[in-house]
């Protein structure tokens, strides 16, 4: 069982994600955003960064990359799809998750550990966690302020504070089926005590345990 980590021009967390997934015993490989065949993979991670320099809107151009057709197909088939930071923004732009992202409420680029609380364990990001569990994970974004006029996004991680104005203090949301998740803080940067926290492990383990042969 293997996860694809899609590399778009301008993302910068792809190696961290592969390293973190492998360090937890999972299999993961990088794929280029122009690849159109992900049939070797059982799940997908869209990593964080600044795809296409955030031109127009975050994720707006990346969503049209050829690989995104495969991502949509896998999402519809129930495969785990995880968008981290910029990856969540892409999933919203692609319509695979509801809502959109705007600038943080205080217009500050936030780069620090934030505490989040697990509020729903019915998702590929949280199934191994415990409801009410608190995790310290680095947030690293300017447009992390999620808005969802449709009210259909299901929050799975909630900030304990209110760092960026995100609706319902959402730090991660999922779709109805729970297989497509967007998360704003970076679990892959909190997978070893050397990094200041290993609280992201339970989230990435959830994702790895959700991978089943396609």
């Amino acid at each position, binding site marked *: 069982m293997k996860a694809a980590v899609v590399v778009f021009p301008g993302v910068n967390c792809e190696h961290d994600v592969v390293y973190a997934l492998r360090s937890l015993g999972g299999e993961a490989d990088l794929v280029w955003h122009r690849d159109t065949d992900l049939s070797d993979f059982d799940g997908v991670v869209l990593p964080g960064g600044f795809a296409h320099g955030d031109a127009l809107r975050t994720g707006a151009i990346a969503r049209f990359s050829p690989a995104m057709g495969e991502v949509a197909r896998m999402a519809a088939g129930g495969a785990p799809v995880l968008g981290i930071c910029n990856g969540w923004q892409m999933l919203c732009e692609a319509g695979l998750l509801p809502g*959109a992202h705007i600038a943080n409420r205080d217009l500050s680029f936030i780069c620090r550990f934030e505490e989040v609380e697990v509020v729903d364990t019915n998702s590929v990001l949280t199934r191994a966690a415990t409801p009410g569990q608190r995790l310290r994970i680095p947030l690293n974004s300017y447009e992390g302020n999620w808005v969802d006029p449709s009210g259909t996004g299901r929050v799975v991680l909630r900030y304990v504070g209110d760092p960026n104005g995100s609706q319902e203090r959402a730090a991660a949301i999922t779709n109805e089926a729970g297989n497509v998740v967007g998360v704003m803080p970076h679990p892959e940067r909190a997978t070893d005590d050397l990094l200041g926290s290993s609280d992201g492990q339970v989230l990435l383990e959830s994702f790895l345990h959700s991978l089943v042969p396609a």
Partner: protein
Amino acid sequence: MKVTITIDRRPEIADPEGTTVKRALHDLGFTEAASVRMDRVIHLEVEGDDPDQVRGRVEEMCRQLLANPVLEDFAIEVDTETR
């Protein structure tokens, strides 16, 4: 021909940048600035002779890429003098 697209964030969606600019204007004494919205204007030059056809294509551009339907509305102005 020249086309101007105005992309407005819907009134019910927060505009943190507009809020900050409004605060700065008030600090400078321009307290009559009751609302500030930082909308976007995109200028296009589009090949074509038929304004209706050009408008239709630009509408499609807005729907697919240029505007986000969750957040934004758009308005298109086609300048027929510049064809």
